[in-house]
């Protein structure tokens, strides 16, 4: 069997409210999986973790959808998605939303014709990839033609602030899409900003919301011992009930539990990534 079980942790847009604390897994997994040791390896961006998975130096990680897509595009056999999180409302995804200032008078994405659109960050699924792939459909024209100009706002939070300031006429960020808009939905970037007190949702209107974007998968290395793989899957599936504290510590946010997925669940996002980013 395996000696060490290596967990890759990545930050990203779908990240929990707090720095996540995987300590409970380090404590419990050895027994559950029959390994000697569990170690944690955080990385700066998707890429660190992805490279770890591709190189086989990590056994398990929770990726963003786009990050998984990249892994898949680079090497379809490197990892297997086994689970994904389910939100409190039962949905297994989140949305990219386009917000503008309320006093702009705009109510729909069609009003944005010729105006300036801000994306959050070139590396972001909801802030760039999804809108740039789906918006042409929604507005009926290529992004470059429909919008006057586009730019990057320097991260989700910053983008929204730029929109409020008027640098961009509208911007795309992520939100759970459930809950009250005035609260910034139940979770997501808008909510975080509201909680911090740096944003007043009454200043904003929502122009557009994307199709649901799947939550990122829990992936394991394909070459992992099948027995360990199964044990791990069971452990995770049971966690929300068996150890809700640990679950909320590693997931944060408004999640209810895990559900099983496979590669197909992410085919669309993989296709989008392939079309837009190329790999």
């Amino acid at each position, binding site marked *: 069997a395996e000696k060490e079980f*290596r967990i*890759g942790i990545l930050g990203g847009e779908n990240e929990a409210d707090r720095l996540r604390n995987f300590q409970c897994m380090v404590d419990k997994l050895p027994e559950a999986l029959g390994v000697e040791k569990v*170690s944690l*390896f955080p990385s*700066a*961006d*998707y*890429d660190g973790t992805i*490279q*770890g998975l591709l*190189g*086989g*130096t*990590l056994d398990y990680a929770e990726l963003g959808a786009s990050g998984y897509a*990249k892994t898949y*595009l*680079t090497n379809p056999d490197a990892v297997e998605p086994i689970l994904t999180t389910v939100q409190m409302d039962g949905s297994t995804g989140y949305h990219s939303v386009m917000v503008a200032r309320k006093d702009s008078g705009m109510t729909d994405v069609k009003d944005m014709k010729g105006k300036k659109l801000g994306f959050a*960050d*070139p*590396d972001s699924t909801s802030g760039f990839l999804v809108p740039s792939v789906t918006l042409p459909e929604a507005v009926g024209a290529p992004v470059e033609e429909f919008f006057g100009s586009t730019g*990057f*706002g*320097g*991260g989700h*939070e*910053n983008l929204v602030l*730029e929109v409020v300031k008027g640098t961009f006429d509208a911007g795309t960020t992520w939100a759970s899409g459930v809950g009250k808009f005035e609260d910034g939905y139940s979770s997501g970037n808008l909510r975080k900003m509201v909680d911090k007190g740096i944003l007043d949702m009454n200043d904003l209107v929502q122009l557009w919301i994307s199709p649901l974007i799947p939550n990122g998968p829990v992936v394991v290395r394909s070459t992992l011992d099948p027995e360990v793989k199964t044990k791990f899957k069971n452990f995770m599936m049971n966690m929300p009930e068996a150890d809700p504290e640990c679950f909320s510590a590693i997931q944060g946010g408004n999640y209810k539990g895990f559900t099983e997925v496979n590669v197909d669940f992410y085919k669309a996002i993989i296709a989008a990534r*392939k*079309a*837009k*980013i*190329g*790999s």
Partner: protein
Amino acid sequence: MKDMKPPVEMSPACAATERHWQELSRKRRRYTLLSVGILLVALFGSLWFANETNAGKFFDRLPYFFDFFGDMIPRDGWEIWRALFDLPSPYFDGSLKFNYPDGRVYLIGSLYMPEYVYKMLETINIAIFSTLIGFFLGFILCFLAASNLTTKKWLRFVVRRILEILRAFPEIVIAGFFVAVLTIGAVPAMIAVAIHTIGSLGKMFFEVVENADMKADEGLQAVGANWVERVWFGIVPQVLPNFLSYALLRLEINVRASTIIGAVGGGGIGEALRLSISRGHEAKTLAIVLLLFVTIIAIDQFSAWLRKKIVGNQAFAFGASA
């Protein structure tokens, strides 16, 4: 005394010296063994620790050492060229990977500047700008920190601690903070690098000032010059060549620093590099690395040449001063 025979008998003085020598050498041997021991323990402990806390284990990973290079091989060699100059690629499939012309920065009409050249210019500008800021503020602060010019001990103390903190404060934190407050891009990187530059140039400068010859200053004092005039005419002409030389060295360092800060959100070429690496755009990555390599060597050589002109063939002794 053709043949120095082993001494039958040494004079008392010699015998005493010999005893003393043996004592000393025993002590020295003990210290040497002890410090070598400590060093070895520290080294192996560190290595073990590093290996243990690393995702891949050193020996497991060695065979895969060049995998990353493998991923970096572009489809054809000309891709690098096209990526560098934003020329259309025959492999263009609608994705960003081969969409090189996308990044062109149009100057007039159809005359454009390739994206990475522009970004590189941005990085160089960040470096020059922050070096300038660091130079001016470091210049002002250094005289206040020099013990031969500032007699108030508390003032010196305060200025030196400020310089120290500016120097040691992690650049990414400053960059990260200003990315949050301002926006992503060049300015936070510039502020971060500038702040560090103030600290390190300030420190180097005041060491130069402290080694300055005070005769001219005394002469000016006797003329009735005030503090500012004494510094300006008595010290500045002496130290300026050294200051410039250090500033040039700093410029070199800052080009690198700006790249690094760029990679963690500070704009410029560093950001482009990180993005293209994380997106797996090999040709772009190689183009950027090539550009960086050429630029850094060019700046290196230029500043070495200029330094030589300014202060002659005087090597920098890092850590020469305590």
